[in-house]
C-alpha cells in the first residue's frame, strides 16, 4: 500500500507528482504564485483533491523556495546581531577576498547593518575555557537599542561558542528574562564547528528567514487542512534528505536549497535503482545548468553551502551552477570571439524564436534553427518562429563570416563544452573519471544535450528520466527522512583519542533522536569523520563503521588506512610517515520511507505510433539528415528507438543523434547508449 504526493514550487510552475496504488501515477501543473506560494500548491492539489487522492495519502513531500527567495530578495526579519566585544564586524569583513580581479569589486551588503550589530563583553577560549565572564548589563543595553530599532529577531554568534556555548545560552536566558519575545538564533545550536564568519553567517541567515518560513508553513498547513489532508508533511532540506515540519521550524535555514535538491534526489534514486556506481545529475533550464555528482546512489555532499554569497555551515548537496541554459545569449566579445552566456534573455523577451520581441540569438534559437526541436510546437501553445531565430543568428554570424546554420552549430558546441567543463570539474575534483559516469539529463533543455554531452565527455551513456518536465517533484518522493549534526573535535588519530570521537557521536545521536520521527521505518545511524594529515589544513571525509546502537567500531588503524586510500584516490599521493588528525565528527540519522514502486504502467497506446520524420542537423554526421520524430508517450517499456531521432513530450525534447539508441526502461526512463562512434 503506497500513497504519496510531492509538490515542487519552481520559478514558473508548481508541479505535482502523485502515486496511488489504485490510480498509479498522476502529474499536474499550476502556475507558481510568488507572493503566496501556498496558493499555487493549493491550486495544483485541487486537480486531484476532489478524487480523494490527497485525503487518503499519509505523506506529502515538498520542495519550495521560500527561504531562498527571502535571501535573494533580501526580504526577511529585521535583525539584531550580538557578537563578542572586539568582533562587531565579522559579518562585514567576511574573508576579505575579492570575488574577481576587478578594480571596484564589492560584495553585496551584510544582512544586518552595523547599527544593529552590537557587542557584549565576554570571552571563551578555543579550548572552551571562560576567559571573561559575560557582562549582563551589556545584554540589557543591547536589547534597549534593538527595541528602539524595532528588531524582530536576534542572532547571537559569540567567538569560540562552538567549543563552549555557555555565554550564548546565558544571553538567551537574559533576553527572555528582559521580556524579548521575538525569535532568537544561537550559533552553537546551528553549528558546532569552528570558523566564526561561516557560523555567524549561518546564524544570521537562520534568523532572517525564520518568520518567512514559519509563516509559510503555517499557511500551507491551513490550506492542506482545507482539502482534508491529515498526513505528514516533509520538506526537502539542503542536505538532500527530507525534514519534518517540526525540524524545519527549528532549523529553517536548512530549507534554503529545498528547490534544486528534488531533481538530484530523483537522479540519485534512479542511479541506485540501476546500480550505477557513478552518475551525474545534469539539470539544464532556461538560465542555469546545475550539475551534481552521485556516487553509489548518494549525492555528493559538501560541508558548507552558499546562497547569494552567504556561507552556510551545514551539509549541502554539492550542486554546481553555471550560467548556461536555453536562454543564454550568443554574442561577439571585444576581441571578436564568439561567446555564449552567462547573460540570458530571461523569461522576457526570451529567445528570438518565442516571438516576444527578443532579437539577440540564444541557445534555444540555435537549437530551433538546426531542427533539433522538431516542428517547434512547445507546451503552452508556443509555436517557434524559425525565421526570427535565423535572423537573430545572422546578426552575430555575419561579422565573422558565418551563416545562421554555422553559427547555430558553433553556439551549441560552445554551450555543450561549457557544460562538459563543469561536469568534468565535479567528477575530477572527487577523483572520479567522468568517462565512467552516466549522465542523468533533465530539466527543460537537458535531454536536448544528452547525446552531445556523451560525445563531448566520452561517456558510457545517458538516462533521460520519466516525467522529465516534473522530475524535481518526482525526485522529492524518493527521499529518506534525514537529520544531521556535526561537531568540531580536534584530536590525534590514535586509539586513545577515539574515545572523544565516540562521545561526540553519542551526544550527537542523542540530540538527533530526542524528538521522535513521525513517519518511516527504523532509524539508521550513520557517521563520518573529517581527517587530515597533521601538517595539512583541508580534510577528507571518510565513513565510520558503527554498531547498531551508534557505537564506534573502527580503531585508529582502520581509519588511517581508509583515509590514506581516499587521499591517494583524490590527489594521487600520500604523505608517508605523517601523523593524522581528526577535526570533526558528523552524525546523521536516516529513516527510509516505504519505497515507491518505480515501474510505470505500460502506457502503450491502442494504435502503433505514427511514422513521422523531420530534417535536422546531425553533429555526428556534420550535415542535415532525416530524423525520426517520435512522441515519447507513444513508447512502451522495452521499446527501442535508433537515432537519428527526436523524441518529443510536452515539457522537453530529447535529441538523439545518429549512432545513438534509446530504450525505455521499466521505470519509464530512457537509457541512451552510443552504438558506434
Amino acid at each position, binding site marked *: 500500500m503506497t500513497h504519496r504526493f510531492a509538490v515542487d514550487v519552481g520559478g514558473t510552475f508548481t508541479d505535482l507528482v502523485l502515486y496511488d496504488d489504485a490510480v498509479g501515477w498522476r502529474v499536474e501543473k499550476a502556475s507558481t504564485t510568488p507572493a503566496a506560494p501556498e496558493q499555487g500548491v493549493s491550486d495544483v492539489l485541487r486537480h486531484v483533491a476532489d478524487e480523494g487522492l490527497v485525503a487518503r495519502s499519509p505523506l506529502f513531500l515538498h520542495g519550495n523556495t521560500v527561504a531562498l527567495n527571502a535571501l535573494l530578495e533580501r526580504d526577511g526579519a529585521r535583525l539584531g546581531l550580538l557578537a563578542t566585544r572586539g*568582533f562587531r564586524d565579522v559579518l562585514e569583513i567576511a574573508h576579505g577576498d575579492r570575488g574577481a580581479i576587478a578594480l571596484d569589486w564589492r560584495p553585496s551588503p551584510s544582512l544586518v547593518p552595523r547599527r544593529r550589530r552590537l557587542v557584549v563583553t565576554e570571552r571563551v577560549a578555543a579550548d572552551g575555557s571562560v576567559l571573561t565572564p559575560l557582562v549582563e548589563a551589556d545584554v540589557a543595553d543591547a536589547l534597549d537599542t534593538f527595541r528602539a530599532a524595532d528588531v524582530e529577531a536576534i542572532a547571537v554568534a559569540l567567538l569560540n561558542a562552538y567549543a563552549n556555548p555557555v555565554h550564548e545560552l546565558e544571553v538567551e536566558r537574559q533576553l527572555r528574562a528582559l521580556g524579548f519575545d521575538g525569535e532568537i538564533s544561537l550559533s552553537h545550536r546551528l553549528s558546532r564547528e569552528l570558523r566564526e564568519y561561516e557560523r555567524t553567517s549561518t546564524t544570521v541567515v537562520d534568523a532572517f528567514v525564520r518568520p518567512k518560513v514559519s509563516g509559510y508553513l503555517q499557511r500551507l498547513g491551513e490550506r492542506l487542512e482545507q482539502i482534508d489532508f491529515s498526513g505528514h508533511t516533509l520538506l526537502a532540506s539542503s542536505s538532500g534528505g527530507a525534514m519534518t515540519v517540526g525540524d524545519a521550524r527549528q532549523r529553517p535555514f536548512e530549507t534554503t536549497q529545498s528547490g534544486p535538491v528534488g531533481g538530484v534526489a530523483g537522479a540519485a534514486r534512479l542511479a541506485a535503482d540501476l546500480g550505477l556506481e557513478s552518475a551525474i545529475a545534469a539539470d539544464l533550464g532556461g538560465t542555469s545548468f546545475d550539475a551534481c555528482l552521485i556516487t553509489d546512489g548518494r549525492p555528493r555532499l559538501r560541508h558548507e553551502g552558499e546562497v547569494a554569497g552567504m556561507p552556510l555551515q551545514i551539509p549541502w548537496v554539492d550542486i554546481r551552477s553555471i550560467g548556461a541554459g536555453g536562454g543564454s545569449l550568443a554574442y561577439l566579445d571585444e576581441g571578436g570571439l564568439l561567446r555564449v552566456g552567462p547573460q540570458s534573455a530571461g523569461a522576457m523577451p526570451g529567445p528570438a524564436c518565442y516571438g516576444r520581441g527578443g532579437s539577440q540569438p540564444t541557445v534555444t534559437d540555435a537549437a530551433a534553427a538546426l531542427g533539433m526541436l522538431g516542428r517547434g510546437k512547445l507546451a503552452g501553445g508556443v509555436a517557434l518562429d524559425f525565421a526570427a531565430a535565423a535572423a537573430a543568428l545572422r546578426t552575430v554570424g555575419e561579422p565573422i563570416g558565418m551563416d545562421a546554420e554555422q553559427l547555430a552549430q558553433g553556439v551549441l558546441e560552445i554551450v555543450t563544452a561549457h557544460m562538459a567543463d563543469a561536469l568534468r570539474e565535479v567528477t575530477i575534483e572527487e577523483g572520479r573519471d567522468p568517462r565512467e559516469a552516466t549522465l542523468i539529463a533533465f530539466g527543460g533543455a537537458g535531454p536536448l544535450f544528452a547525446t552531445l554531452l556523451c560525445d563531448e565527455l566520452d561517456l558510457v551513456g545517458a538516462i533521460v528520466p520519466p516525467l522529465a518536465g516534473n522530475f524535481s517533484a518526482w525526485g522529492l518522493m524518493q527521499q529518506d527522512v534525514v537529520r544531521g549534526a556535526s561537531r568540531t573535535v580536534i584530536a590525534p588519530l590514535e586509539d586513545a583519542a577515539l574515545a572523544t570521537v565516540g562521545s561526540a557521536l553519542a551526544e550527537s545521536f542523542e540530540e538527533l533522536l530526542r524528538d521522535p520521527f513521525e513517519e518511516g521505518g527504523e532509524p539508521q545511524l550513520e557517521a563520518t569523520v573529517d581527517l587530515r594529515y597533521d601538517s595539512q589544513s583541508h580534510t577528507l571525509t571518510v565513513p565510520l563503521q558503527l554498531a547498531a546502537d551508534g557505537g564506534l567500531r573502527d580503531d585508529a588503524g582502520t581509519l588511517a588506512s581508509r583515509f590514506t586510500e581516499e587521499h591517494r584516490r583524490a590527489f594521487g599521493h600520500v604523505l608517508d610517515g605523517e601523523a593524522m588528525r581528526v577535526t570533526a565528527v558528523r552524525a546523521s540519522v536516516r529513516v527510509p520511507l516505504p519505497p515507491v514502486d518505480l515501474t510505470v504502467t505500460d502506457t502503450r497506446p491502442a494504435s502503433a505510433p505514427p511514422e513521422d520524420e523531420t530534417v535536422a542537423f546531425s553533429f555526428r554526421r556534420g550535415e542535415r539528415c532525416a530524423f525520426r520524430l517520435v512522441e515519447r508517450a507513444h513508447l512502451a517499456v522495452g521499446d527501442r528507438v535508433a537515432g537519428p531521432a527526436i523524441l518529443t513530450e510536452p515539457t522537453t525534447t530529447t535529441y538523439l543523434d545518429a549512432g545513438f539508441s534509446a530504450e525505455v526502461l521499466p521505470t519509464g526512463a530512457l537509457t541512451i547508449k552510443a552504438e558506434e562512434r
Partner: protein
Amino acid sequence: MTGSITEVRAAPAVRSIERDVDPVTTEIVRQALASATRQMDLTLSRSACSQAMTESSDFCSGLFDADARLLVANRGALFALSMSFGVTAAVDAVGGRASLRDGDVLVINDGFLTGTHKNDIQIVCPLFVGETLLGYSSVRAHFLDVGGKEPLATDTTDFHQEGLTLPGVYLERAGERCDDLWRVLLSNTRYPREMAGDFEAVMAGCRAGGRAMGRLVARYGLDRLLDATEHILNHGEASMRSFLRSVPDGEYRADGAFDDDGIGDELIPFTIDVSVQGDEVVVDLTHDAPPEQHGPVNCPLPVTVAIVRTAIVSASGSANLINEGHMRPIVVRAREGTMFHPRTPAPINLYGWAFDIDFVLRALSDVVPAIPAGGCGDIGATMWWGEGDGDAAPWAMLEDHPGGQGASRVADGGPPTFPLVTAGMRKLPIEVWEASAPIRVESYELAPDSAGAGRHRGGLGIDVTYRALGDCRLTAIAERSKLAPWGLDGGLPGRANAITIGYPDGRQEHLTKVSGLRLTEGTTVTVRMGGGGGYGPPSERDPKRIAEDLAEGYLSEQACMRDYAEQAPNADPALTEAKA
C-alpha cells in the same frame, strides 16, 4: 645612472596559423584551459599543508605553450603575469628544450629570474605528446620557509641572506625523484614537514593540469589545438588593443614613494611615466629612478614588468582569464642598476610590494574612469613563529590583512578587501588562529573614521590586535604608512597603515617593518590597515549618506564636523530622520 635601458615586450605571435580562424574551437579550448587551471588550483589547495596555500591561496596555476607563453591563468595576477619568465629561465638553466624529458619536474626560485622572492617557488612540468613538447604546466606558490636569516626577513642586505636559491634544477627527472635535491630542500627550511607536503600538493596540481592538456590533445589533435591556442593569444591581444584604443592618446605621470628600504627610515620617491599611443602603452620607469637600494625593496625586472601588466590588465577589465596576448601591447622600460631593475646580489625579499599597482593606475586615473582613488596599499602582513609545547612541532603562521579600498567615480569604497595584487587571498578565521597557535586575537573590527572623505568616501580600514600567549617571534611588514591612500578629484586621503607593538611593561613601539622580533608572553601587536581615499569634494557628499555613516558608526561626530562641516547634520532635519 649609467645602466642601460631594457625594454620588455611580451612574446609575439610565433606560429603561422594553418587553417581558417575557427572561433568556436578557440572559445571551447579557451574555456577548457580555464577549467584546467581551476582543477589545478583545487587539487593543490585541498591537499597542501601550509595555510598560505590552503587558506590564503597564495599561489597561481598556469598553462603555457612550448614557447613558454602563458595560455591561461585564472587568478593571482602578479604571479600569473611573471610566470612565463620563470618557465623560460628554468628550461634554459637545464640546457634548453632539447634536454627535457616526459616526467621532468623543474624548480626555480631565483628572484632575478622569476621576479618574486625565494619563498615563491615555481614548479615547471614539461608536457609531451609523443616526442613533441606541447607546453608546460606550472605553479608558483609561497612556501612557508626556504631558510635565510629569518622566515621572510625585511632587513636583508644581500640576496644570499634570503634563503636557498634554486636556479632552475630538476626535482624529478623523467618521473624519478632527484633524492639529493629533495634532501637539500628539506634541510634548508625550518618547516620540512610542511615543505614536503606542499611540494607534493603543488606537483599534484601540475599533474592535474597536464592531464587536462592531454585530454585536449586527444580531443582536437595537436595541430588543431595549437591553432586554437595561437588564436587565444591573438584574441587576448585584440581585447587589450581594443581597450587601449578607448584611452585618449597622451603622456601621463604619477609620483609615488616607498616608505623606506626596510633598514633605514627614508622615503624613496619615484616617478612613473605612461604613454598611450593608439593601441599601445609604454610604461617608463627610467625617469629619476631610485638607485638599487641597500634593503630588500628592490624589484627584479620580471616583477616590475608583472606589476605594470597587472595594473593595465586590471584597468582594461579583462583580468580574469589572462594570457600572454593581453601583454603584447604593453611595453615596460627600466634601467639596469636601478631599484626597478636591480642586479644580483641586491636584496629583493620584499620585491615589488612597495611599488604597487595603484601607482600605475594613478597615472591613468584622469583618463580611465573606472580607476578608483588610492587604497590601503598592497601589504600589511605578519609572520609568526615559535617553538611547540613539549613534543609539539614548531609552529608558524603567515597572515596578511585586508584594508580599505578607494572610492570610485560612482560609489563609496566597499568593505575591506585584499588589494588587486593579492586578489585571491582570504584572511584566516580567528577561531582557526586560536585553535592553531598560542595567539589570542583581541579584536578585529572596522576602523571608524579611517576612510578618506569625499562625494564618495573611501572604504574603511581595519584594526586588529593580537596578543602573544607565550614567547614567539614576529616579522611584520607595512607599506604606505607614510604616504596615505590618496583621494581623487578633490576627495581626501584615507588613513595610512601602521603597526604598533605593545610590550608588557607598557612601552609602545610604532614600526613599518621588523624581522624576527622576539615577543614575550603578553606582548600585543596591533595592525591598523588604512582606509581608502575619497572621490570628489566632501562638500558634495549627499547629507543622507553622511547621516547613514554616522548611524552605522563608520563616521564619528568629530570626524563628521571636520570633514563635512558644510553639511552639518544638525542643520538638516532630513538627516536626523535618516539617522533614526
